[in-house]
Structures are given as structure tokens and as C-alpha cells.
């Protein structure tokens, strides 16, 4: 590693700061979604360590290291952020804050928001004070998102919003929503849409959780009944919501595609398999066909990881390929689904445990599966549906990259 003296100094400084400031509890592997800090007005910290860690990192701007300091960020450039991330990985530090504000709304506001909107919203996202949810899909607008019907009619200085959203992640825990609404019913489908921000405590907003096959209820139906929203809360120009939505979906897709929730700080798949299934005297996994399935999967997973790395390196060098987020989203989610299938197979009937005392609290390193294994498997089925289905991603690649006719 030929690091510049400035970068070496930054690395040393960062390492020392993290050592001094990251609580021991925050260096443990994330066991499940409950260990992830989402922030917001309704957030209840799991323990003091989680609270302290968020506050300290937010004070440095390191919950959003590359955002400008003026908006609560760390003002780091990409190479400095890479150093920070590698130093956090070194001590297995958990991310201090995870949120749709950071991953999705923030980048969109930085690009499309006006100064007042940036000043108002970005620092609260960075400090974890406001938790955002995303109002996109509707009962009649899933893959065909642009056919959405939730309306926002301008009356004086306010928009009046009416309609229904579905699959709103954590709507019942969120404080504010970024929402796609139809402001011009007479315009062509993609051109009548606007991007509106409003408080979930506004009169007329109600939510109702949807119970999923995993037993979890991370998604809600969200209803808007004459919700009044100040017109200054519209991002960009009226009718440009679709462009903002597409930009933001790009970020969402990269996030979902790169997500590998089962593996953070944990054993690799073949390590788990060795503990659960055992090895023959040759050192090979006892079950030869399972071993073959695992290695084929790991080859694809490594090839995918190297592709993520190459794509980033090429982007930095000003090269690169188009429709990247669709490729990463499609391939990454299909891989994660396959991974969850294999993890279930590795643990056999142990993987079927649902609730009760049989549920094992460990992280899988003991040879027994983590207690939430079956739920994680079921959860992963949604990876290739949410944020645009695999089929929609393939359509996008066919159209934008391959330029196939009529796609």
C-alpha cells in the first residue's frame, strides 16, 4: 500500500479516535435488524453504547462522511472515506446509523434540493433526529410505478394530498415521508409526477402495518386523507418528480444489490458449513454435493464482489459502464437469495426453527444456525421484488445498455 503521508496521518488519527470512542458493544457483529440503529423521534436506543456511538460519530460528521460539513457531514473525500471505512472494519465497528435519509433522500436532496431544504433536512438526517420513509408504490402501481395515482392539488400555499401508498418501509416508525404524488393529472404519465416531503404527524396521515411471510411487519399501507403540505416542501420543479425518483432508485438499487445482511462480521458460508456438516479426513466438507453447491455460489459471490470493486475503480478513473445500478441490483439480490437458500440447506431441520426456546441466540459460529435464519431466508425473497423487480432490472439493461428494439 503506497499511501500518501497525508493519508497515513489521517489513518493514524482515525484509528486512534475510533479506538478511544467506539464502545465495545458496538464492535460486536450485528445479530439482526434489532441491532441496527435507525434513529428518529420515536427511536428507543437498545443500550447506552448505541446512543453514545451515534452521538460521537454524528459530532464528527461521520454518519455521512462524504456530505459537506455545512449539512452535518464529515466533508471527507472518497479516499479519506475509504480509510475511515477500512479502519471501522478493522475493529468491526457497527455503522452508527442506518437510514433511508442517508441512503436515498440525502443524495437526492444534495442534487435536486434548494438551499433551504438542504439546511432544514440534511443535518437532522446526519444526526439521526428524523427518520424518513419512502412513499412510492401504490396498490395499482408496483412495477409500473409511473402509473401512481396519489394526488396533490395546489390550493393557495399548500398542496392537498389524497391517496394510498403501499410497501412503505417502517412508515409506522418514520417521522417524515418523501413521496411521489401526481400534481398534473392532464400531463403524460411520467410528466405529471412531483416529489413532495411531509411530516407523518400531519393530520390525515395514517398507517397500517402489513404482516409478511417472515412474521415481520416492516412494511405498511399508508393513507392520505386531505393532508395539507406547504408548497415549499416540493423538491425541484412540479412535474420533475420522476427524474428525482429514478435518481433515488439508483441509490436504492445499489444499496439493496450490495447488501449482504447475513455476512457482516460473521463466518463465511463454507466456515459455517464445516461446523454444521463436518469435514472428512481429506479436509473436504463431508457432503460432496453440498460442497459443490457452496463453492459454485462462493465463486459467483466473489466474482460479483470483484465486479463491485472494479466498477468503483473504473468510475474513479473516469471509465465505466452504463445501467450499472440495475446490473448490481439484479445480480446482487439473486445471489443473496441463493445464499439464504444454501444457508438453510447447510443447517437442515435446524434451520426450520421459528419461535420458542429452540431458537438459538448465537450468530451461527457454533455450528447451529442463528435464531432468525428462517425469517432471514423469507425476508430475502423480497430482495428481487423491492426497489424494482429482477425482471424490471433486466428490462432496463435490455433497453439502456443493449438498446434492443421495443424494450
Amino acid at each position, binding site marked *: 500500500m503506497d499511501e500518501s503521508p497525508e493519508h497515513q496521518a489521517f489513518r493514524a488519527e482515525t484509528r486512534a479516535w475510533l479506538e478511544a470512542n467506539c464502545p465495545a458493544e458496538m464492535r460486536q457483529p450485528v445479530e439482526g435488524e434489532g441491532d441496527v440503529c435507525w434513529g428518529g423521534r420515536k427511536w428507543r436506543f437498545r443500550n447506552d453504547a448505541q446512543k453514545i456511538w451515534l452521538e460521537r460519530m454524528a459530532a464528527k460528521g461521520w454518519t455521512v462522511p462524504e456530505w459537506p460539513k455545512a449539512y452535518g457531514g464529515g466533508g471527507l473525500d472518497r479516499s479519506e472515506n475509504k480509510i475511515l471505512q477500512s479502519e471501522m472494519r478493522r475493529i468491526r465497528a457497527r455503522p452508527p446509523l442506518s437510514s433511508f435519509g442517508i441512503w436515498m433522500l440525502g443524495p437526492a436532496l444534495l442534487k435536486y434540493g434548494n438551499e433551504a431544504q438542504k439546511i432544514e433536512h440534511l443535518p437532522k438526517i446526519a444526526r439521526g433526529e428524523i427518520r424518513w420513509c419512502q412513499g412510492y408504490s401504490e396498490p395499482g402501481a408496483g412495477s409500473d410505478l409511473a402509473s401512481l395515482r396519489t394526488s396533490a392539488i395546489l390550493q393557495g400555499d399548500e398542496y392537498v394530498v389524497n391517496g394510498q401508498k403501499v410497501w412503505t418501509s417502517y412508515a409506522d416508525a418514520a417521522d417524515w415521508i418523501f413521496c411521489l404524488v401526481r400534481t398534473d393529472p392532464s400531463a403524460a404519465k411520467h410528466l405529471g409526477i412531483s416529489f413532495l416531503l411531509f411530516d407523518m404527524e400531519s393530520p390525515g396521515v395514517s398507517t397500517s402495518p402489513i404482516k409478511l411471510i417472515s412474521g415481520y411487519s416492516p412494511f405498511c399501507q399508508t393513507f392520505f386523507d386531505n393532508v395539507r403540505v406547504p408548497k415549499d416542501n416540493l423538491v425541484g420543479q412540479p412535474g420533475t418528480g420522476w427524474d428525482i425518483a429514478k435518481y433515488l432508485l439508483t441509490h436504492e438499487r445499489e444499496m439493496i444489490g450490495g447488501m449482504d445482511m447475513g455476512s457482516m462480521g460473521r463466518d*463465511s458460508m*463454507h*466456515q459455517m*458449513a*464445516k461446523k454444521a456438516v463436518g*469435514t472428512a479426513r481429506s*479436509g*473436504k*466438507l463431508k457432503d460432496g454435493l453440498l*460442497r*459443490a453447491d*457452496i*463453492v*459454485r455460489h*462462493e*465463486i*459467483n459471490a*466473489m*466474482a*460479483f464482489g*470483484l*465486479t463491485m*470493486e*472494479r466498477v468503483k*475503480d*473504473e468510475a*474513479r*478513473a473516469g*471509465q465505466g*459502464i452504463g445501467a450499472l445500478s440495475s*446490473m448490481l441490483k*439484479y*445480480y446482487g439480490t439473486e445471489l443473496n437469495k441463493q445464499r439464504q437458500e444454501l444457508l438453510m440447506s447447510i443447517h437442515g431441520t435446524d434451520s426450520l426453527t421459528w419461535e420458542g426456546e429452540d431458537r438459538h441466540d448465537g450468530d451461527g459460529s457454533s455450528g447451529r444456525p442463528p435464531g432468525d435464519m428462517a425469517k432471514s431466508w423469507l425476508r430475502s425473497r423480497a430482495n428481487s421484488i423491492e426497489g424494482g423487480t429482477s*425482471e424490471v*432490472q*433486466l*428490462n432496463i*439493461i*435490455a433497453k439502456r*445498455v*443493449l*438498446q*434492443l*428494439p*421495443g*424494450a
Partner: protein
Amino acid sequence: MPLVLNDEQRMVKDSAEGFFAGEGPVAQLRKLRDAGDADGFDRSLWAKMAEMGFAGVAIPEQFGGAGLGMVAAGLIQEAIGRNLTLSPFLSSAIVAATAIVKGGTDEQKAALLPGMAAADMIVALAADELPRHAPQHVATRAEPSGNGFRLTGSKPFVLDGHVADRLIVAARTSGADDDMAGITLFLVDPRTAGVAVSRRSVVDSRNAAAVTLDNCQVDGADVLGAVGEGFATLEAALDAGRACLAAEMLGVSAQSFETTVDYLKQREQFGQKIGSFQALQHRAAHLFCEVELARSVTLKALTALDAGDPRAPFFASLAKAKAGDVAKLATNEAVQMHGGIGMTDEYDIGFFMKRARAAGETFGDGAFHADRVARLLNY
């Protein structure tokens, strides 16, 4: 090491792509095949590849090479894969050159490498003895005799064996047939008494020969590396070859994929371009992703070899396994999406499927390398 080409490598890529499309296109392979050419490649093209610095890409400058390294070698091999160009590049310039660079004495290097870089001399590796790659399986015996050894055994598939001026023969000086220890590499002149070379006819028109050795006397000075310790050199040469074969298969995949996408935009059925059918669009889009993955693993393997990364063998197997799977998928899909015309000899796409198969079987197929990946990860 970032996974991105530097300026020098981009120049190699551009010049290799231009060179092979112009000087060694698929039409040349067809011509050589149809003429039943005795060499199976165009010697004037091979001489031009030396002038371009390609033949010496993996040979250090002090021995007359260009010393550009394995990423550059892979870019050349990828362009070869796009055009299916026939030449002793893989066998001599990559595999044999690597064996000599890693295992040879200064005298051996000085005697062989400059001629190889100049395309005056072709050296071929005679290692495999079984139809399925098993580099440890060496039953060919080397018995001490005079100031050297007498070799007896059979090497049924030696790339470019029929045009080789020297063979690098893996033979056993001690141990059992599948032992890693006890393998010794020998430089053998194929004109030596007891050596028989017979050319083989191969599905993709690549050049190979069966070599048999019957009490063939070699001098002690013709041992390449240390007696009984040839396996490490052999593996280094094979890994260079495997990474370059991954690059060749990447070129095969990318070219057949692009040809197929073009065809989807032209061919009409049911009154519309067949590329407008979603059943084909999704398969093409999936293939696009797979080719990108093959590109990443191939570049990683070549980069690791250049960096002397101890995990280079691991990445070579990762690349050979993944790029092989992708080449199989890409060429099978190409023939299927071309329909009937894809089955004709007149159309080029079938050549790519044949090359993908042959490159896949050479130096270990997907199963061999998947197994090696697992073994290197300790499971």
C-alpha cells in the same frame, strides 16, 4: 492494486484489438482449416506478433522480451479470443516462457527466451497425461542414465506439439504416479531418438499433438529447475496459462455476445425484430451481467500474477472456473438465439462455441477449478 487498466495497458489493448481483427480474423482460421495447413497457423502472422512485442510479452527485457506482464498478456489473449486467431501464443509465449522464467538457469534463459520472443523458436509444454486435467498425475518415468536421464511415457495432448522446437516434459524421477513431489521438468528436443510426435485433429482447429517418449536420452543440463521439484514451476506455468485462457474465454464470450445482440436487432420473425421479444431480452441482459463478472475475475487473476500475490493461484482458478462457465453459457446462447443459421458451418458463431469448449477443457475445466477454489479455502 485497483482493478483498472493503466495507460500502457490500454495501449496494449487497443493495439492488440486492432492487430488481431486486421491480421488474424476468423476468416484466417477458416482458411487454415479448409486448406488442411500443415502448421495449422500462419508463420508470417506469428513473426508479426513478435514484431509487435506480443510474443515476448511475458519475457523480461534482459532476455529479449517486452516484459509487459500478465495483464498485458491477458489483453492480447482476449483479443485472440475475439478473433479466434491461431498461433503458439498461449503454449510458447505464455506457458513455456513462464516455466523457463520461473525454473530456468540463466544459461537456459539466455539460450531459449530471446528466440521465443523473436518467434524463431516455439517451446511447448508436455505435462498432462489424462484427458481430464490432473497435473500431479505424472506416470512418465525418468530413469538415471549416463550423465542424464532416459524418459519413457506418453503425453496425449500437447498444445502446438507438432511445431515445437523444444518440449518441456514433466516426468517422474521419484514417487508414485499422483505425488506432488518427484516430478521433474526436462527440456527435450523433439528430434531426439525415441520421441514420436503425431498431430491431432481438434474440434476448434487449435493445434495439438500426441507425444510419446521411448527411452529418450536427455542430458543432465536439460533439467529445468531442481530434480524432483518441478511441480511448483509447472503450477506457475499452468496458472499463467489458466489466467490467459480465462482472458481468451472472456474474448470469446464478449464477441459472441455482441454478435448475438446485433443479430437480435436485425432478424425479423412474426413481423418484428426478434430482439423485441422479452424472452430473448432477459436472457441477453443476464448474459451481459455474466460477461461483466467474467471480466472482473479475469482482470483480478492477471493483476494478482503481476503483483506476485500469494493468492494468485486461487484467483487463477476463480477466473478459469467463472470465465469458463460464462463462455459456455454465452456461446450456447449465441447458437440458440441465432437459430438455424447458428448451426451452419458457413456462419462464424459455431466456431466460438467450439473454442469455448476447447479452452474450457484445457488446463482444468470448471469442476477442476471449483474444486481447487474450495481446497484453497480449506474445505
